[in-house]
């Protein structure tokens, strides 16, 4: 049951904002801006470095939440949020984890839908928050029954 995972959290995982990964990601979102990929351009920017696009945290490993085994198919991404204290810097290490924030069921025309909210956190080694993200995932009746 998804409900039992509310409040559960994964272990912190160290992720590096890798130069090659940022370049591939920037290209895949149609935005190969030199601030993301050209070393010299980054050096002369206000950041003195290259930065990563705001949706880049999708590539990070956030560890595993015990008891939360979602199927690969049948999930709908309903909503996504990111909140930053500053942009991500290419080359930095971030410690990432996630937790189940909430789970609610609502009656819809197609049956009962489950709304699962997962919170993602990225912080420095000393625990200073750099970003948080939230995903709302919708679980259809079929997905819920399969569990």
């Amino acid at each position, binding site marked *: 049951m998804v409900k039992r995972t509310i409040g559960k959290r994964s272990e912190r995982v160290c992720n590096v904002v890798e130069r090659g*990964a940022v370049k*591939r*990601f920037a*290209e*895949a*979102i*149609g*935005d190969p*801006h030199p*601030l*993301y990929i050209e070393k010299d351009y980054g050096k002369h*920017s*206000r*950041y003195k470095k290259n*930065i990563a*696009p*705001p*949706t880049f945290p*999708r*590539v990070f490993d956030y560890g595993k939440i015990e008891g939360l085994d979602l199927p*690969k*198919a*049948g*999930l*709908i*991404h*309903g*909503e*996504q*949020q*990111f*909140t*930053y204290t*500053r*942009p991500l810097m290419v080359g930095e290490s971030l410690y990432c984890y996630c937790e189940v924030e909430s789970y609610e069921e609502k009656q819809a025309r197609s049956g009962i839908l489950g709304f699962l909210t997962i919170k993602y956190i990225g912080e420095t080694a000393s625990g200073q928050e750099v970003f948080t993200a939230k995903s709302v995932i919708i679980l259809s009746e079929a997905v819920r029954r399969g569990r």
Partner: protein
Amino acid sequence: MNTIRQVRTGELLSEILLAPVSRMDLIKYAGASGDFNPIHTIDSEAKKAGLPKIIAHGMWTMGHISQLFTPYYEEGFVHRFVNRFSGMVFLDDVLTLKAKLVDSQGTDLNFEIEAVKQSGEKVVHGHVIFRLYEH
């Protein structure tokens, strides 16, 4: 040089018209993001999941929307980025991306954002708070 500070309430940033969505776009995004859910790349898997055909990752669209703000990173950064996915994007769909300044408070510029299909259907809406640097 472009400046976001000069944008007034009610004004839009330069709109972006994307090329028609291609299968290669979605394969590239799958590889770059690590999201290999086959409903985004393999027709038979999309059908098995009850979809008429493959659909773009919501995060493919959200990633493209962030382009609207990339020219302004010397002035500030994306502090908050919220997207609600309200419609499906299929191959050959043509999206227009828009950001409109609706409100500003101190150094925070609040933009309403949306992605609209060629048919006029809104597939994403949300907002961005772009936070200006004080110096």
